[in-house]
């Protein structure tokens, strides 16, 4: 574990930030901490995600970026703090209570999630994977579903091969199918855990364009985890940086670059020396 002292940047974080002028924020984290045993992964993270923004969260491997995403959808429960999604505190919901579970499910229906390794259903074809959420949560006819599935698959650059099973696909193809599945219902918020890792640069750029296109046409809020600084520069309007469990920088892209925070600088300059240390 990297042990470093990093000041927490106040930039744009904290409840209330970003609410000025526009609608209520999509997501607000207040002082979220999460440990596994004596391993403190998140240490008091606070941030606000504006509705209709594209936030890219950067950070070295193993700093809890995936843990953070999982807290948003209630797959993990933070030890302390609040996770407000459209005003509802996900962290306070008790899954063993039927009523809370219903609330949680109602919130989750507003999310689409691309897992780090795709998490495609092994026993379903590509087609059925993308059709699954539509069959479940909409009244669309099979013909309408077909049209949408094919459209989504075309958008991620997959023509043909709808009847293949995930095991028959390359890693990059699986990821694209998983992205198609995540946006299948055109949800309010799409979470992407490292969408570009494992993709070639051209495919990665195609996916970035798709993200921006979905953002423009549907106003989807994206929260994207990435190692890819080029991707962050291209798609983000907000950039966050997580290191050692702290949110060391968070704010509008131009501001974050202008401030030239050491951790951000190190990340973009690909320097081995700096606040982020590999032990």
């Amino acid at each position, binding site marked *: 574990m990297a042990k470093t002292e990093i000041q927490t940047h106040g930039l744009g974080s904290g409840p209330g930030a970003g609410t000025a002028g526009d609608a209520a924020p999509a997501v607000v984290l207040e002082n979220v901490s999460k440990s596994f045993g004596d391993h403190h992964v998140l240490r008091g993270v606070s941030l606000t995600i504006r509705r209709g923004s594209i936030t890219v969260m950067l950070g070295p491997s193993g700093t809890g970026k995936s843990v953070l995403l999982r807290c948003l959808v209630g*797959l993990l429960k933070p030890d302390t703090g609040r996770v407000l999604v459209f005003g509802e505190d996900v962290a306070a919901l008790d899954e063993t209570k039927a009523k809370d579970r219903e609330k949680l*499910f109602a919130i989750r229906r507003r999310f689409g999630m691309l897992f*780090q390794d795709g998490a495609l259903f092994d026993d379903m074809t590509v087609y059925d994977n993308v059709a699954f959420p539509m069959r479940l949560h909409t009244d669309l006819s099979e013909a309408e579903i077909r049209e949408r599935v094919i459209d989504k698959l075309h958008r991620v650059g997959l023509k043909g091969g709808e009847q293949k099973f995930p095991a028959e696909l390359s890693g990059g193809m699986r990821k694209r199918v998983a992205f198609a599945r995540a946006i299948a219902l055109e949800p309010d918020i799409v979470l992407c855990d490292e969408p570009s890792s494992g993709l070639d640069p051209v495919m990665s750029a195609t996916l970035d364009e798709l993200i921006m296109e979905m953002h423009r046409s549907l106003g989807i809020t994206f929260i994207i985890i990435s190692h890819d600084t080029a991707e962050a520069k291209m798609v983000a309007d907000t950039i966050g940086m997580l290191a050692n469990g702290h949110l060391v920088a968070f704010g509008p892209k131009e501001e974050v670059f202008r401030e030239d925070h050491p951790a951000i600088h190190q990340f973009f300059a690909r320097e081995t020396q700096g606040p982020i240390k590999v032990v």
Partner: protein
Amino acid sequence: MSKLAATIDAYWNKGLAFLRFAAHALRTQLTTLPPRDAFVSQFVDAGWGSLGLLTMLTIFAGLNLSVQSYGSFERFGGQDLIGMFAGIGGVRELFPVMAAVVCGARIGANLAASLANMRISEQIDAFEVMAVDPMRFLVAPRLWAATLALPLLCGYADFIGLGASYLGAVYQLDLDPGSFLTQVQDQVRMVDVFAGMFKGLLMGWMVAIIACFHGYTVKASDGAEGVGISTNLAIVHGAVLCIVVNLLLSWVMYG
């Protein structure tokens, strides 16, 4: 000593977790209909997929019953009792229990491995995030499939096993076919077959709930090794439980 206490504590917690899981799963199983496609594919997997193995094993077991009992009964001229022996020992105990243990192990291993694999590859989380109850979509169809397939397999094992005993007795050991059949008719009642199938029903559910528990609760961070461990535990715990429960049931039904 504190190590022992910690071990006991760990088992205790695991036991509690199992009971909670089983209660939740049973509630889901009984209050919601499992998705049809998932159930059908699980049922075909559990039932049809076990037929080859079960057929082969019960043929050998049935033949063996005849051959073994012939050796013992012949000494006092009682070789004609083979039909009775195969009927009682086979239909009441050997065939259904063998079906339950062997097919149970096979089915349990499959269930545990498939769920564990879905856990480590985050497929179960994906269900959760899609606001789908994995208990209903993944666990319940598996429970129903095993609970309904195993009694059918037990009934099937009776016929194949008894048939093999008959063929062995008549064609290998030259016994009188009429006497074999009369004894079977005298000794084996249809209710014995149903009792075996009832055992299969109970064991099917128990094997499945244990397997689902081990598979479902595997830690994602344990990776492929976790899949192996959970599969192993499913087989061992399922088989032990089958034997113990069978003994208890035999006591209750025939004791």
